[in-house]
């Protein structure tokens, strides 16, 4: 598989804070790689190096063999940002046509991409007047019209409704079949589990784990005990067999490989436990567990 993104030993620091500490990462043609990790893990710094906003102070970042700091290399890149405010004065069609010309494509390339993303009827509308979902589709259209070898998507589906999200991934799947690689950062871990071929977990500037979603899930707890309890987090963390712990405000989610033993202790310590259920652990629990353990 041809490599469209190659990162070798990437380092970056902000003052005394080491944001990236020797990261290696590859994305192949047609492959989707999800970059996961807590806030401050180094995801944004790495993405900024990949899209050419930051220099690699040590190591190297190559997009299709070129330096993304060079404008001509960025013709191979399509970027969708988490939130982008479009100029108040430009219309949808002008933005997509402009993106095509900037990427060295004919103006006529805009039409099919706009149709693909259901933007044709919005062509004459000011981009700043679009809804959140429409704006994300417009950003994707501006990225796709360049027919990039690598798409970098930063929380691309945040705020989108479910049908729009499905359509978004369907379009990207078609582009991947044609050879585009995808680097995805998202907080929607279950979504990345569904769409990514590989997941890379970053923490404190290092690659903590890497593999297919199934491989990562297999490495850590295979069950999640969910309940509403009066027990504090410290006490829950100390329970036998707990490998990950999260509190969503209403319920606690305890990742474990020994759910029976954990349930016995949990019920003994909190007889008033409610809303109890046990689920198969997903990628979210696996990532949380990896980060908690600092497993490399």
């Amino acid at each position, binding site marked *: 598989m041809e490599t469209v993104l190659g990162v070798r030993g990437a380092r970056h620091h902000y003052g005394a804070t080491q944001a990236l500490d020797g990261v290696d990462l590859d994305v192949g043609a047609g492959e989707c790689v999800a970059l996961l990790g807590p806030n401050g893990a180094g995801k944004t710094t790495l993405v900024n190096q990949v*899209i*050419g906003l930051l220099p690699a102070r040590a190591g190297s970042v190559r997009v299709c063999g070129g330096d993304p700091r060079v404008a001509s290399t960025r013709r191979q890149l399509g970027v969708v940002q988490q939130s982008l405010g479009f100029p108040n004065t430009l219309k949808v069609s002008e933005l997509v046509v402009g993106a095509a*010309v900037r990427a060295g494509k004919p103006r006529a390339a805009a039409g099919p991409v706009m149709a693909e993303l259901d933007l044709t009827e919005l062509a004459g509308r000011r981009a700043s007047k679009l809804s959140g979902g429409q704006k994300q589709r417009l950003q994707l259209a501006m990225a796709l019209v360049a027919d990039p070898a690598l798409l970098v998507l930063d929380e691309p589906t945040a705020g989108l409704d479910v049908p729009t999200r499905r359509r978004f991934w369907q379009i990207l799947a078609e582009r991947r079949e044609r050879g585009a690689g995808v680097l995805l950062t998202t907080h929607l871990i279950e979504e990345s589990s569904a769409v990514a071929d590989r997941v890379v977990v970053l923490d404190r500037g290092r690659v903590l784990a890497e593999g297919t979603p199934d491989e990562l899930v297999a490495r850590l707890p295979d069950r999640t005990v969910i309940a509403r309890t009066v027990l504090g987090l410290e006490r829950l963390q100390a329970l036998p067999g707990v490998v990950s712990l999260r509190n969503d405000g209403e319920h606690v989610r305890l990742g474990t490989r020994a759910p029976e033993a954990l349930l016995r202790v949990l019920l003994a310590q909190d007889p008033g436990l409610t809303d109890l259920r046990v689920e198969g652990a997903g990628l979210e629990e696996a990532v949380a567990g990896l980060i908690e353990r600092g497993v490399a």
Partner: protein
Amino acid sequence: MNTKIFGVELADELRGIVREPAALFFSIIMPVGFFALFVSLFGKFSAGGVSAGTTMIATFGAFGVISVVLLNPGIGVASDRERGWLRAKQVSAVPISVTLAAKVVAALPYAAGVLVAMTATAAVTGSLTAPLPALLRVLAVLVVGALPFALLSLVIGFQVGAGAAAAVLNAILIPASVLSGLWMPLEIMPAFFGDVARFLPTYHLAELARAQLTGGPVLTHVLVLLGFALVAATLAAVSYRHARS
């Protein structure tokens, strides 16, 4: 520079001006309005064979052109930074210098419009005494000479938000204009104004334009403006790198 890409960038900037003209409307109305007031009061006075109304095209014209190129690119860049649009441009295949050049060039037709409006006002009030070639030289000097001010505008645009950029740029423009004699001739101002003016590029641009009408010396003004351009370009490059990383 790829002309097609520059064309797209320039078209976007011009659309921004045409579709939201409020800011530039005031950039034209204010200097032209001031000019109309002063030229109707003093325009027919004459010094050295040139009417005051004609020399005011150089001084008020300098104010009008500088206000357009100083305010608009910087506020535009600051707005683009705030909304993430500049970042989108930075990660596109377009060298950022092309984007910034388009912002500056897009302001030039407006700047020329200010000068045409002032010349027409002087003509209507009967105080226009310069021949067309001299007026064209004034226009060329002011439009080209104002470019370093556009670079200074970008410096501010890279450093602060859109609201602050408007305030900071006006805080530079208005005092520099008054101190350089762009509104009122330095001859009727306290001597202190003239002492300060010699250090201001706004003064040298107006004097270089006035020299096209009066035949005065130009070398000092050209050298000062070239030095200012060098400093502004250096600051713009440093500011861009600071804003980028």
